């Protein structure tokens, strides 16, 4: 092809990955919605309440991390390398994982177990799967950070910046949806 404005291969690849991911979560979420619609009481009556208020702070943390990533990418496209923005994204991502991990331990202490029944099965599985995605996203962004530290030419790294960024946006924007379904619904 002669076209000059080719979309980078990495971006196409990540678009495809994200479409597959969306379908993956769509499968999980629709299973969850149907299960909850069929159940008599949802959440089950004897289940301890989930910590809705601490968790909403987590929603905000992830969204803010994405916002900083957005600033970073916007600058990068102009050729400005402002790694502090990226650093904030990473730190917020780690904070999210820590809070979420603590909450898990609390819930296990409360005595919610995966084998308790459907509600706990879904809750733990969906949170765990999302957690894995956050970890993967963080690994991508941290490698990006380390690589950018070494180069001065940010343009050559633009494809990986936008592709990895896309993945992080996906992971963070997914969380409010999951929060709504698991904690409030």
């Amino acid at each position, binding site marked *: 092809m002669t076209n000059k404005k080719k979309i980078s291969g990495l971006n196409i690849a990540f678009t*495809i990955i994200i479409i*597959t991911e*969306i379908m993956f979560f769509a*499968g999980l979420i629709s299973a969850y919605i149907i299960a909850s619609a*069929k159940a008599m009481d949802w959440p089950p009556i004897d289940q301890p309440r989930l910590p809705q208020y601490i968790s909403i702070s987590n929603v905000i943390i992830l969204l803010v991390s994405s916002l900083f990533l957005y600033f970073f990418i916007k600058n990068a496209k102009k050729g400005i390398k402002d790694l502090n923005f990226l650093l904030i994204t990473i730190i917020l991502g780690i904070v999210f994982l820590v809070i979420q991990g603590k909450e898990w331990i609390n819930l296990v202490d409360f005595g919610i177990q995966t084998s308790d029944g459907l509600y706990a099965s879904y809750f733990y*599985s969906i949170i765990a799967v999302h957690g894995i995605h956050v970890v993967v996203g963080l690994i991508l962004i941290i490698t990006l950070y380390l690589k950018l530290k070494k180069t001065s030419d940010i343009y050559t790294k633009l494809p990986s910046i936008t592709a990895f960024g896309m993945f992080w946006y996906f992971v963070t924007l997914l969380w409010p949806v999951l929060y709504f379904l698991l904690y409030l619904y």
Partner: protein
Amino acid sequence: MTEHKKTGFLKRFFFSLDHKDIGFQYLLTAMFMAAFGGFFVYVFRYNLAFGPDDIPLYGNLAAKEYNQLVTNHGAIMIFWVGMPMVLAVLGNFLIPIMIGTDDMAFPLLNKISYWTFLLSCIVLLSGFLMPTGAFGGGWTMYPPLSVSDFGYNNPNTTFKANFFTGNTFFLMAVALEFISMLMGGINFIVTTLNKRAKGLSLMKLPIVVWMINIASLLFMFSVGPLIAGTFMLLMDILVGTGFFDAYRGGDPILWQHLFWFFGHPEVYVLLLPSLGVVGEIFSTFSRKPFFGYKMVIFLVLIAGILSLVVWAHHQFVSGIDPGAANIFSLLTIIISIPFAGMVLAYLGTLWRGDIKFTVPMMFALGMLASFTFFGGFTGLHLGSNVFDIYAHDTYFVIAHFHYTLFPSVILGGFAAIYYWYPKFSGRKLNKTLGKIHFWGTFIFFNSIFIPLFWLGLQGQHRRIFDYSNWDKLLMQPNHIMARQIATVSLIFLIITQFIFLFNFFKSLYKGKVAEKNPWKSNTLEWQASSPPGHGNFALYPAVYRWPYDYNHPDRDTDFLPQNEK
């Protein structure tokens, strides 16, 4: 571009990143897995015809082993023979060279994809070594069969005991295979979008490249929910969640939805690349332009989209809502319209062509004929819930899907091998052996499955070890004879394949040397040397026309390659 370097076989096998080498690795691995799948089917078919005792090359067969063999036969043939053959082998061999470039967009990812695939084969086969034996709950993995004895059903087992079971290994193998095919598919699409030769617009791509890409897209779009389901099923087995446990409010039918949402598109994933191969071959050996190129692409896209909304036709007797069943019936029947249009276009290519009955052409004609007359046609019947309530889970369904999958994977696969062999080995296969191979394969394939249609209509259910409990219904002399005809044909079918293996491996070293363009075809791969060196082309080709200018009015020769002005 670099010259073709001679490297040792092992080094090349393990470390080469060249797309042709990786394609060849996939081909050998798929053939290796096909040997397992073929041996399994021989053993359990022998049992159905002549009883379980003293099976030659096997010994006595127990009912549990029968189930394990049936399950693994199905899974191997679909995931470890079909998928690699039509997607990985064809995609790797054909896409870079047909679009006039040197390699895939991500060669390393390509290699990782192969390694993951190989790992998945090993994981699957090691299921047979587990203390519980291999998984035997059917290739569709329906719960509760796929979780019984484990997880919630048996509170006394430990995580470790649940892990080292055929069930867990089967599911992990399937998941790994999906990941491998995802990596491959991403490579195909990115390569096709970004690395085409100068002048090669999308609407000038060979039809087989289109088909492989659409199939990859379809796979990636539909596999997500099944990965979710596989994850949930693994959790049920390993940590005792209750997603599919009706006793605790879970829903076994949910698995069927997640499975078939993927499962139906998956059968098109296996079909489309093979239709692409047939399209190339028809045009070349009819010496005529491909008829209705744009229409075929358009119809495939429609069929692809429709295939995402027909899945519940596999569940008409699972207790789904009858109103919904009617809608799924209707959608299923509608999907035959685009396929009928495609078959019509293919016949249009053949119409009044100067047909050359070469071996690839014979396989291609055999593929389209058996797929259309028996596969698609009986699918139409099964799609109607009124009929399917009686036919579901009988040998009628078995015959239906073998008439779709065998043509797609095996006949289409052979067509592709015979057609492109001269290009990728630099040598020619023996024609006479090829023709014997074709007729043997085609005749025995039909004489296996036609009796099975009849047995299915007689009420013979699938996945049953021993029919002697139904002696009035299924043990009449003609029933026994029908089963024996099928089994004997199968044995002949397998023997016929040795002719192919002999021809394939002998010609690699001793075959007649092939010229650059032995079939006088137009697509770009025939402009590279045979076999193409590392990097494929000495000079990147530029493209001036679509691939099907046969018998062009301005030319004396009856073909006009894509890279000629």
